[in-house]
């Protein structure tokens, strides 16, 4: 047993850190560190930089053009990029559909789409949820009917994150009606520019535009964009669900937010002393810090058991990871006291910082708090995760 990183791993960390320091544009880092609004172009710029370096899909196997990083290397990469203020990589291509295509895609799909993901050509979004199919995803209703070499897709997707930027969507559609509702679902790759696709914004609690409704009306999808076999979509979706084991914990980003919280608490004053020295507030910071230490160690522990198949431990990471994110966001909002109230969407623009009221870090914090409420709902609500632990792990 040894919880220290190897010399090689330390070296890799240094390499990543140096590269990010030298190449991450300062304006992008500032936005991330100050909780300001990221544009599509910010993500694209940063991902282009990584693609050029060959690191965008560093976690992919070498046979698909990745670097074949070990899980520990992936963790180090996530942590270093997050800590230094790099935007989170848009996961839909890199960490989601990419893996499904690698495992179940046709040679053409692999050649065409994996290359475009690795080179940051396509922006993917995920078409899973529907108005009537949230936690109960399997009851989805979007239909795809085979017509010659095409599928004709009709239906509606919802909660489609960043669909407004996407040119491709992977989606679950119903190609037949089986005895069980999990049957007859297929996995399609859909061009967002195709005729019949309409994207309508959903404005969130923080009054920002992160997610969308996507209406699909007689959308024609070439049959070569069917992944794997017709009717096996649920199997592929489940494969994907179990795939992302440790990134879901968000340890790197939470470490960055913890530093942000501590910095704010040092600046803010309560009873004439820094809030960071207030016994009750200091205890709350310490408690979330300890939670994060425990989560990081659990991530490490799972990484080191690499030979084991991906399991429901991801549920532990999802629950704790999102609880910590939400606690951090709440404490930051609390830290600024009365300045939690002003709503200043214009101050979310990097250039307009000076126009805001209150301390310069305060403007985004209430919105940030409300925005993070989604994390315990999306990606399998924390209630669903507890069901999974009880039923899959404990056999109840």
């Amino acid at each position, binding site marked *: 047993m040894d919880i220290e990183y190897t010399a090689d791993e330390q070296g890799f960390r240094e390499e990543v850190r140096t590269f990010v320091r030298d190449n991450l544009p300062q304006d992008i880092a500032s936005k991330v560190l100050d909780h300001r609004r990221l544009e599509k172009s910010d993500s694209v710029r940063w991902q282009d930089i990584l693609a050029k370096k060959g690191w965008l899909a560093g976690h992919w196997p070498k046979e698909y053009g990745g670097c074949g990083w070990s899980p520990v290397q992936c963790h180090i990469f996530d942590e270093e990029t997050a800590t230094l203020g790099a935007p989170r990589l848009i996961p839909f291509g890199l960490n989601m559909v990419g893996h499904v295509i690698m495992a179940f895609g046709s040679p053409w799909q692999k050649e065409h789409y994996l290359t475009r993901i690795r080179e940051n050509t396509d922006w993917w979004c995920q078409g899973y949820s529907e108005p009537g199919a949230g*936690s109960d995803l399997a009851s989805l209703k979007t239909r795809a009917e085979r017509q010659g070499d095409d599928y004709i897709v009709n239906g509606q997707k919802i909660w489609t994150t960043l669909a407004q930027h996407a040119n491709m969507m992977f989606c679950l559609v119903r190609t037949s009606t089986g005895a069980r509702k999990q049957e007859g679902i297929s996995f399609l790759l859909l061009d967002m520019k195709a005729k019949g696709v309409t994207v309508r914004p959903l404005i969130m609690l923080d009054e920002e535009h992160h997610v969308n409704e996507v209406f699909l009306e007689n959308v024609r999808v070439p049959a070569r964009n069917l992944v794997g076999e017709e009717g096996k979509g649920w199997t592929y979706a489940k494969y994907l669900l179990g795939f992302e084991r440790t990134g879901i914990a968000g340890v790197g980003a939470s470490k960055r937010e913890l530093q942000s919280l501590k910095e704010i608490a040092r600046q*803010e004053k*309560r009873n004439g002393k820094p809030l960071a020295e207030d016994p009750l507030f200091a205890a709350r910071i310490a408690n979330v810090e300890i939670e994060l230490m425990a989560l990081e160690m659990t991530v490490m522990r799972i990484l080191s058991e690499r030979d084991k198949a991906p399991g429901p431990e991801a549920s532990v990471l999802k629950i704790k990871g999102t609880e910590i994110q939400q606690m951090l966001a709440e404490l930051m909002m609390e830290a600024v*006291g009365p300045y939690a*109230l002003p709503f*200043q969407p214009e101050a979310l623009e990097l250039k307009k910082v000076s126009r805001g009221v209150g301390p310069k870090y305060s403007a985004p914090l*209430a*919105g940030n708090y409300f925005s993070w409420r989604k994390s315990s709902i999306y990606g399998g609500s924390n209630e669903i995760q507890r069901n999974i632990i009880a039923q899959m792990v404990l056999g109840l």
Partner: protein
Amino acid sequence: MDFSFNEEQKLLKESLEKFVEREYTWEQRKTYLAKPGGFSREVWSQLADMGLLGLTFDEEYGGIGGGEVETIVVMNAIGNALMVEPYFATVVMAGGLINRFGTTAQKQAILPGIAEGKLIASTAFTEPASRFDLNRVKTKAVKDGTGYLISGKKAVVLHGAQADRLIVSARTSGRVGDAEGISLFIVEKGAAGLKAKDYRTGDGRHAAEITLKDVRVGADARIGGEGQALPIIEAVADSGAAALCAEAVGAMQTLNAMTVDYMKNRQQFGQPIGKFQILQHYAADMFVLAEQSKSMAYLAAMKARSPDAVERRRAVSAAKVYIGRSGRAIAKSAIQMHGGMGVTNEMAAAHYAKRLTLVDFILGDTDHHLERFIKAA
């Protein structure tokens, strides 16, 4: 012991409920929010016509002499409907302050105007670095002839840019943090050197940062003795906190009802989500918190004018702690149970949740009042 409303109070409650039903649907509310200053002058006039804007003022100044219970009734209804008019700032805080502590001339000059709906007013106690401490006043008022010159900054003044009158705390002596040496002044809109930077709050209201630069006021603009205003400010802040508690309870009640309704209608896994035991328990906890919060709001209101300052502080701070925490917890659960819909701005529930979260940061958050409660023991 009696927790019931009397006949007049019941009538007040009913008339407000009818008013809301007719004039304050969710769709109507959206149009009010979009108006200049973020509220409807028409609604404001109607509230004046109903006698609500002079509710607690003495009758000779156009009021109807109501007390804390009447304020509870109104604030509860405001919370139920999430009304955005400046009732709290104008009637409860500024009006209440003048009615209780102003000179006859000040009352005559301001209270009838408020009662008739012609005057918006607010209090400006908070400063950029004061957090929630009412004594941490840096703004200065320097004697100048018979009057004063006021300079300083005031933070997050509710409806500060819409207010025709601001009641500003300023230091006439002593140092930041001293209990002595704070005075109160009435400042008129448009006074030379007065600037208001208007903005929306996260819960859809308006507030402003106020800058005062040698703003000249006469001696007749001072409320209370020079340097003796802190007890006045505290008394009014306690009444205000009690009123906010009643508003929050109103918002909890509506939000809980909306959530239960959603749980009965939203289907997943072949049944309404309200059939899932874990969600039932969340809803039960929300109910318990709202019931207990209601009790605490009554306690705060009943003690908000207690002559015993310790008793007053204990009751009001305990209520603010309990309701601040409960409101935040209810907001979280409501969002969670609304699922994806709960995190969009499209559902009314989301706006109740935001109000219940942000109201904690007005007149002192949970931590502030917990500490005050401990000190008052």
